[in-house]
C-alpha cells in the first residue's frame, strides 16, 4: 500500500497531429491528439505527456487549443513541453489546462528560467526534460552528456550534475530520455536511469527505448524510476495501458489498476 509507479504515454505533437519518429527523425502519423488522449485515459493512463515538436513558431498556438480540448474532457494530470522559453510560455500552457510544463533546451540556455518559473508557479509544475547521450571516456565509469535541440546539439554538461542542479533550482520532476535508446525498442538505458534517480530526491521519469512491457518493469525495478514513459508501443495498439499495468503488478510493482 502506498504511492503507485506511474505509466505515462507520450504524445509527440506537430501541426496538430500525434507523430512518432525514430531517433527524432522520420516522423510517422499516429492520429488525433484529443482522440488518443481520451483512449489512454479510458485505459487507465496515470498521466499524459504532450511534446510539441513543431519546428517553426507559426503553429505554436495549436498546442494550446489541443491542451484546452483535452483538459476539458480528460481529468488526469497533463504535462506539456516543447518550445518553452519564458515564464510567460509556462503560464500560457498552465492556463490552457496543463498541470506541468517541461523545459529542456531553454533550461540549458538559461538555468535561471527554472528558478523563476518554479518560484512563480510552484516546483510541482516544473519538469526538466534531459536528453542524455553516452559519451566516450578513458575510464570504465560511464558518462552521459546533456544534448539539446531535439538531440542534435552537444552541451558538454554532465547529466547527473545537471539533474542535481535542476533540483536545487526548483525542478519538481525530471523527464530523462536516453538519446541512444530512443526509437530503438531495446529498452531503457537502465544504468543512466538508475544513476540519475539515485542522485536526486525528486521523481524521475524514464524515457526512450521501450519496445515491450518487460522494459517498463525493468525501468522501475532496475532503473529505480518513479514513472515510465512510452509512446510507440501504445500508439500502434501493440499493447494497452491496462496490459502494461498488469505486467507491472505481476512483478509486484505497485500500480493504480
Amino acid at each position, binding site marked *: 500500500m502506498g504511492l503507485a509507479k506511474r505509466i505515462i504515454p507520450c504524445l509527440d505533437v506537430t501541426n496538430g497531429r500525434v507523430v512518432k519518429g525514430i531517433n527524432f527523425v522520420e516522423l510517422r502519423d499516429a492520429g488525433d491528439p484529443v482522440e488518443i488522449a481520451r483512449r489512454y485515459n479510458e485505459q487507465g493512463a496515470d498521466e499524459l505527456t504532450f511534446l510539441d515538436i513543431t519546428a517553426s513558431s507559426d503553429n505554436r498556438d495549436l498546442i494550446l487549443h489541443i491542451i484546452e480540448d483535452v483538459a476539458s474532457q480528460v*481529468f*488526469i494530470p497533463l504535462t506539456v513541453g516543447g518550445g518553452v522559453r519564458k515564464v510567460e510560455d509556462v503560464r500560457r500552457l*498552465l492556463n490552457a489546462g496543463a498541470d506541468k510544463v517541461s523545459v529542456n533546451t531553454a533550461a540549458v540556455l538559461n538555468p535561471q528560467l527554472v528558478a523563476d518559473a518554479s518560484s512563480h508557479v510552484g516546483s510541482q509544475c516544473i519538469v526538466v526534460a534531459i536528453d542524455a547521450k553516452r559519451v566516450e571516456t578513458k575510464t570504465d565509469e560511464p558518462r552521459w552528456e546533456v544534448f539539446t535541440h531535439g538531440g542534435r546539439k552537444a552541451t558538454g554538461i554532465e547529466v547527473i550534475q545537471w539533474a542535481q542542479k535542476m533540483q536545487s533550482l526548483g525542478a519538481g520532476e525530471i523527464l530523462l530520455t536516453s538519446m541512444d535508446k530512443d526509437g530503438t525498442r531495446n529498452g531503457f538505458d537502465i544504468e543512466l536511469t538508475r544513476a540519475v534517480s539515485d542522485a536526486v530526491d525528486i521523481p524521475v521519469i524514464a524515457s526512450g527505448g521501450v519496445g515491450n512491457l518487460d522494459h517498463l518493469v525493468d525501468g522501475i525495478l532496475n532503473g529505480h524510476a518513479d514513472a515510465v514513459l512510452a509512446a510507440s508501443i501504445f500508439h500502434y495498439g501493440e499493447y494497452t495501458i491496462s496490459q502494461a499495468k498488469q505486467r507491472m503488478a505481476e512483478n509486484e510493482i505497485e500500480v493504480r489498476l
Partner: protein
Amino acid sequence: MTDIAIVDYGMGNLRSVHKALEHVLPEHTIVVTSDPHVVNRADRVVVPGQGAMPNCMHELNRLGLHDAVVDAARKKPFLGICIGLQMLFEASEEGHVNCLNILPGKVKRFPPQSMVTTDGQKLKVPHMGWNQIAHTLEHPILKNIDSNTRFYFVHSYYVDTADTAIVAAQSHYGFPFTCAVAKDNLFAVQFHPEKSHLAGLTLLRNFAEWTP
C-alpha cells in the same frame, strides 16, 4: 446567484477545477472569481491552489479575499484542495508563515530522514502520483468512493494535526499522514479530485449535493 464560486487568488491551475466541476454539474452556475462579494454570495465555495504558501497568503490578503474565505469556511459548504487544505491550519513550515488558523495543526515538510520504504527504497519529494486514501470517517463527500481508492497527489508539505476528530482520511508516504479533513460545513483534501479521474469526479459531485 452563483451555485459554486472557485476562489482565484492567482495561484495555480484553476481551469482544471472549473472544467471538472462543469463536467459533473452541467446545470450549475460555476464561476472562477477574485471578487470577495461573489464569494460571499455563492452557495458553495471551492478553494484550490498550488504553489508556495507565503505567496498564497500574500495574494489572498492583497486581493481582499482573506475574510471572504474565512467566512465561507465557517458558514457554507466549503471544499479546500491542496493549498486550500493547508491554509486552514495555524501555520506552515513553508516560508514560516501564519495561515488562516481555522483548524488546529501545522503544515510540515516531508522530513528527509523518514523518506524511505521498509525495504530501503528512497521516497521522492514531492510526493507525486496516485496514492490510496483510507477513510477514517464516514462522510457524505466520500459516498460511493471505497476506502483505499487512489487519488492524484502532488505536494511536499503535509498537515499535522493533533485533533484526530477532524481527520476524514489518511494516506501513507513514509508514514501515515492526514489527506482529508472534515468539520461541520468544511471538507478539505490534500489530493487533487479534479485530476483523479472517476473517483475525483465522484467526490466533486458529492460536494455539490452535500447539505452539511
